[in-house]
């Protein structure tokens, strides 16, 4: 099952608007989760799965948790993750690609930590919808998935100012940090240290 509107929204070139566009592609909250949104992915992301977020900047950790500055894409282009079903080769090529592209821009890239989160914890908050998880697989990263927040302006029951939306987005990021908690794994531990070569020595 596919939904062309969802697929188009998930790959929209304006990355800042991607989350809002995906939200609007379906009437139901996180409605695009009902479809596989990528022809490269093995299928929709299930609640039972685990997602891994690669943390490349030590400044994106704060007081032992994720820094809010590392999560702002949840309302824009989506938070990039790899599904647990991705094999080591896919993790390896992802790290390699990120490191190469950052180096090309003059930035030193290291794998600092991996945040592993159960999808079921992300999707729901007290039995209600919190964020959406889409199977945004790419040609070289078929197990890529994006975490996106529903567009808060459009789900509000009354008109909200831009400031109120911003406040709500930041409140959501705070909850997201609490959900991720201390689920951070060092590269030397994750998958028996298979990617510790990308960590700072």
């Amino acid at each position, binding site marked *: 099952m596919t939904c062309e509107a969802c697929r188009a929204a998930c790959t929209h070139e304006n990355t800042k608007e991607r989350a809002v566009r995906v939200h609007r592609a379906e009437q*139901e909250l996180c409605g695009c989760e009902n479809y596989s949104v990528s022809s490269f992915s093995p299928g929709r992301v299930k609640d039972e799965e685990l997602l891994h977020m690669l943390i490349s900047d030590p400044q994106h950790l704060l*007081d032992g948790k994720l820094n809010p500055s590392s999560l702002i894409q949840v309302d824009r282009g989506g938070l990039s993750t790899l599904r647990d079903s991705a094999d080591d080769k896919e993790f390896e090529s992802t790290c390699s690609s990120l490191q190469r592209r950052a180096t090309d821009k003059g930035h030193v890239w290291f794998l600092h930590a991996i945040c592993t989160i159960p999808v079921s914890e992300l999707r729901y908050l007290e039995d209600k919808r919190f964020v959406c998880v889409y199977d945004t697989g790419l040609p070289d990263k078929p197990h890529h998935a994006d975490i996106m927040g529903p567009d808060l302006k459009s*789900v*509000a029951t009354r008109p*909200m100012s831009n400031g109120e939306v911003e*406040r709500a987005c930041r*409140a959501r990021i705070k909850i997201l940090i609490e959900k991720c908690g201390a689920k951070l794994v060092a590269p030397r531990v994750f998958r028996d240290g298979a990617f510790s070569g990308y960590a700072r020595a």
Partner: protein
Amino acid sequence: MTPGFDINSTSRPAYVDSMQVQQIGAVGTATDTMSPIELFVRLNEDGGLHSITANITPAGLDRFSLRPSFEHLSWLTETAERISACRNYQDGWDGDEAVAPTSEALGAAEALAVLLTVVSSHVRPQFSVDALGRPTFSRNVRNLYLHLTIDSENAITWFADHKGTEYFQDSVQFDGRVVPEELALLFSLAQGSSEVA
């Protein structure tokens, strides 16, 4: 299905009601034209923290319980180095789609960092840059969650939670010389409870 948290709620920050008109600690440089980093360099040349205290307007600083120590200076040194490193960032610096911060925004971050030296290390926010290129100061400790972004060279936005009460200020004018009053009061509250804890 509704979202899992109440996005329509409004909670009037408690401190607004209890706010008293008072002056907040302000960094006044020796001349009006001195940049924060020039000030920083001079502080180093002058021998450190005593120069910082000499340049801070004393009114209201009792709320910060300023305790001169080299910790302030080492934090400022480290933060200034981080900010300086960001001046070389280009779009895509994270290997993905992150935007590079502007020189003006980083200048405002330097100014704010100098002002934040008077905040207790227990609650003082830490510098980073987000994917939109916004210099960010944040903290997540017991009794204080703070997510502050520098939106432009003269505007900052922050969301905070202190003991379960939310504080949010959007696009607050920031001139680089004075900590906005509401933010200073938030630090004062957090610092007070941090010391009690």
